[in-house]
């Protein structure tokens, strides 16, 4: 059971969260501009690294905020995100 840091609530037990999968590129404003192949890729191909992955967590049994956090898929440790934003 991970200890997840919600930006509003601080460190909380994993049981308060619902996992939202790896983060992916922002959904394009105009999907029709992408080729079919690119859209299929966007829908079905996730990040799957052995190492650091950005993933989404929903503090469903807490404040209700969605957060993107960086976690190592081998050690399960949370890592700082160097870039700003999502």
């Amino acid at each position, binding site marked *: *059971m*991970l*200890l997840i840091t919600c930006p509003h609530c601080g460190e909380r*037990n994993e049981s308060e969260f*619902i996992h*939202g999968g790896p*983060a992916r590129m*922002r*959904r394009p404003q*105009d*999907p*029709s501009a*992408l080729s*079919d192949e690119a*859209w*299929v890729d966007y*829908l*079905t191909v996730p990040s799957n690294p052995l190492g650091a992955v950005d993933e*989404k967590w*929903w503090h*469903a049994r807490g404040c*209700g*905020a*969605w957060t*993107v956090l960086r976690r190592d898929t081998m*050690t*399960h440790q949370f890592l700082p995100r160097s870039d700003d934003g*999502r």
Partner: protein
Amino acid sequence: MAAESMRLDQGGRIDRARTIAFTFNGRNYTGCAGDTLASALLAHGERLTARSFKYHRPRGITGAGQEEPSSFVELLGDHQSGSQPITTVQLRDGLQARSVNCWPSARFDLLALNQLFARMLPAAFYYKTFMWPNWQVYEPHIRRAAGLSFAPDADRVVGTYETRHWHCDVLVVGAGPAGLMAALSAARTGARVLLADDGTEPGGSLLGRKEQIDGRAAIEWVNAAVAELDAMANVTRLSQACAWAYREANLVVVTERAPSTPGIFQRSWRVRALQVVIATGALERPLVFHDNDRPGVMLASAVQTYIHRYAVRPGRRAVLFTNNSSAYEVAADMRSVGIEVAAIVDARAAIPADAAALVPGVEILAAHVVAATDGRRSLTGVHVRARVDGALRRIRCDLLALSGGWNPVVHLFSQSRGTLRFDAGLSAFVADHAQQPCECAGAADGRLDLPACLADGAEKGLDAARRARFTGTAAAAPSASAGPAHGTLALWHVEPAGASDKAFVDLQHDVTVADIHLSLREGYGAVEHVKRYTTAGMGIDQGKTGNINVVGTIAMAQGLPPEGVGTTTFRSPYAPVDFGAMAGARGGPVLLPYRHTPITAWNIAHGAVMVEAGARWRRPGYYPRPGEPLQDAVNRECSAVRENLAVYDGSPLGKFEIRGPDAARLLDLLYTNLFSNLEAGMGRYGIMLSDDGLILDDGVSFKLGVGHYLVSTSTGNAEEVYRHMEHLLQIERPEWKVRITPVTAAWANATVCGPQARAFMATLGTDIDLSNAAFPFMGLRHGQVAGLPARVARVSFTGELSFEINVRARDAIALWERVMAAGAPLGMTPVGSEASHVLRVEKGFLSLGHEVDGTVDPIDLGLGWIVSKQKPDYLGKRALEIRRSSAKPRRELVGLLMEDPARLVIEGAPLTPNGARQASEGFVSASVWSVANRRAVALGLLTNGRRRIGETVYVRMKDEVVRASVTAPCFYDPKGEKLRS
């Protein structure tokens, strides 16, 4: 009853005044309070306490604690349990224990016949035989012979299992010298400390030795330390508590086997600690040589523990076999209680002077090994020789104490993913780099002498407290003497005399050095291969004393250093734990909470048959009159809806209020159809897709006002849709100004339906204009109904004129009772989910669990109008297009009328071309008896179904084929005149 011939008159941590009667293998004995089953039997001179797993060789007691690899018992009667080491059973009044794996008794075991076939039964023999005619001919016999004990009867458990969460700054595992010092150091800084010790009393290794601390008996120091800790408010101390798992993020699981709280049988703690100090000590390992498994062969440290802790003499004339100096203290202790020490066989060529000085007058055979033993049911002598060849010499003895070196107990450290390294001086694996905030201390960190343990514990405890941001100084280590210096000579096994030598490396599973060599010879060379091939280390003791010798044996055979071989993975639990201890009170409705509406009690009181619906809602299936069968009740309820007046509780439908300037944009993105052009006070049926084009949900959503909507979802998917919406807003469109409030439980409803519904609403009393002009189908109006504030919606899931009366949840019962009272003279009928299913099938309305099976999109379902062509984008739009751009034929929603009008078919039954036994071209999604049509009707999905209306298709069941004709998927009021009336 036999006398306690081997009990010492004085000493030990037992209470001679309190005798305890027990039975073992059917015979009666007595012991003292404080004894284990092992110590009590040894006190009686009982040695043959078990039979080995495969060969059924006579076995005795090897160790004194959890590490015991030889003797396992099951407890009968009130204290029933599955197999456990004989050394961990605390003596209690009325205890009945029995050796496992032997029949009729350990003394006389018929299966000892296996020994005659021993040569045919090397490791992994079963992979090479038992193939003809097939394994299942042999399997029942193998299964009966395997399995150590019978499963214990859980009804005998007195008290409950409890679980709790715990947070602390420093968790100290082990209350031996290092653990106590660590706890003192940390606690004195003010840090919150949890000290968990596996023993029945604190002290660890000090309980089994004659040590002095600060000039007094060590136990006095232990008592003082414990008294200080118990007096501190920031310390929690647990006894008989095993820390058996180290998970991610410093979560450690500890289970108390005998908490002092009355009524609690066992208590598990899920401990989240900032820092962990692992002071779990070290375990002695045995030496490996031919016939090293006879009763009377014991670990030297166990002999010491029986002498000092249990006041038992495990033998009368002893030989010690060692490769390090700790055995010399044991020899001295033996002499002090009258055990004759015939010889010390030391594999080392040079014996340190400080060790030899402990045993003046004892014959020390340097550079010698024990090569074999004698004695069928009990040791009678050993054969020793010089290490490098030499003639065998027999020494008479009834006790052989083995000291093969010490293994720091790094199990928890390894579970935490800390890495290990091989320490040549100790000839053991020790902790190297931690991966989580923890540290090993004392003997667990490879410090084998007492002063070093005390100092190390003090320092590590303070370090832990400091890392948890507390300040202070380390507890001052008391003085103690070091004992002889430890110098261990690696001796993984004595060189065998011949290929038939039985030198046991894993006593529990009867794995010998020859088995390991066989495994390597056959190419199973990785340490994990050897383990799986031989099953070494896979027993209840999980190889605590044997695994290192397995590694060493492989290393010797392959010419590698032990670190080149590596260890097998350390897996939780450290020691076996009851399943009940992990579950605690979770179960039944605690595990799966029911969801009720306020009407549930009324439903049950009125005879409703309640069913488990989606998302754990408890809903009425039907309301049978006394003696009324299911189908009759459903028919009656359906008739009431179609012909007269009925009511159902639609409260579980998901409901969300959406507010904000971007609310309309949100709905337009979520649904396939346009919502932003909805008028206030009106609703619209919509379908939501996931972005990869699968149908996520359907429901009717309303516009309440400017930037204010009420979204309703199916019962089962409410949580999933909520997640979907919040994800969309917070992750994809954080710049949008919209807020979502779940109101599923805030509003309850009673939905009144049927041709008399409008008239009934007037009877019930409302200030809402109910005329069709003022309140059209899909409208939503506010007002008073039956004297209660309400939102009324004209939505229909049954196809009849309906008024969904939504009130605050606290008014639900009042509303329902008023509806039933006003409706009684009119024949108002409550209706359950079974009837709802029939009614919606008649109308061809979708059900997510039936027609929507992941292969169809809204167009396939005949809802092409719902897929907006105007909107440039909505979730799933592109996926829909991409999917339809393939040439694959699509399955479409159709109606099915069976050739036999009374025939119902299993929902899910496939439709196959010509009814042949082959891949399907569709399936029956729903099949019901329709009162309105006076025949059975069905819905299904069928390849190119809409082009095949009028065709005959075939429902293929196991042994029959049912013909049906394809129709449009609606069997009642296809123009929807009733619901629009």
